[in-house]
């Protein structure tokens, strides 16, 4: 999980992952599209591979990289949990704000305000 985030946190590597979403690609093709040098691309691919985000197969002289969906699915579950955590907080806040609005309305109606318990 942490490995996945660390690997994706680098903009060039994120771009490589985006490129691979369209399907497997040889290294040379990514070098052309990313305007990076081959050693840089290879270095990034190694990090992505270590994080389990890509697989490589050798086809004649070419090394072809493909995305592995598992770490991305794991990441999605984690992000969803983060979002749900805050959404849970905010839904409680929604309910609290409704209470506060009702309290205000009551205070306006009643001239004498009783102490709230």
């Amino acid at each position, binding site marked *: 999980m942490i490995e996945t985030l660390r690997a994706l946190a680098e903009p060039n590597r994120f771009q490589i992952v985006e490129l691979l979403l369209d399907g497997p690609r040889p290294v040379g093709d990514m070098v052309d599209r990313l305007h990076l040098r081959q050693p840089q691309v290879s270095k990034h691919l190694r990090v992505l591979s270590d994080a389990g985000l890509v697989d490589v197969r050798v086809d004649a002289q070419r090394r072809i990289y493909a995305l592995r969906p598992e770490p991305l699915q794991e990441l999605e*579950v984690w992000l969803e949990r983060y979002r749900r955590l805050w959404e849970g907080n905010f839904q409680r806040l929604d309910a609290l704000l409704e209470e*506060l609005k009702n309290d205000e309305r009551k205070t306006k109606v009643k001239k004498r305000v009783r102490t709230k318990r």
Partner: protein
Amino acid sequence: MNSGTFKVTTPSDLEIAMTRVFNAPRRLVFDALTKPELVKQWLLGPPGWTMPVCEIDLRVGGAYRYVWRKDTGKEMGMGGVFREIVPHERVVCTELFDEAWYAGEALVSNILVEQGGKTTLTVTSRFQSRETRDGVLKSGMESGVAVSYDRLEQLLASQGTVGMEKGASPS
């Protein structure tokens, strides 16, 4: 109710922002963000956590302190100092968790904008450096959402995984 208005974005290399619309005037939202007896009621996180400590000294230079406790006894604390306060409009404060898994404090701004009786809350956390933000990432803790969330979401949606409700277009 307003769940669909919840967004997480990364406006810059150093920042993470969350926005959410609330169906209330901003003075009430402001109270809910700054009065301890109200904060304790909603800022709780996942099920099983309570907030036994919630102290807020709402003035510039004043401190706040939050501690959460899980039913298993585990505790998590954080706090900071207020840097800027404009009643009903904005609160800027520093933020540091006790278990400082990243170096340096984050600067957090809460901005409230009211329109037609509804209030948009934007919470922006700014880290001191790219390294700090990356440290947050490495920690894998909650704040670690400092990845390019919007783009990631698109990415995940197109990957055809479970599909996040936002941004996933109906096919």
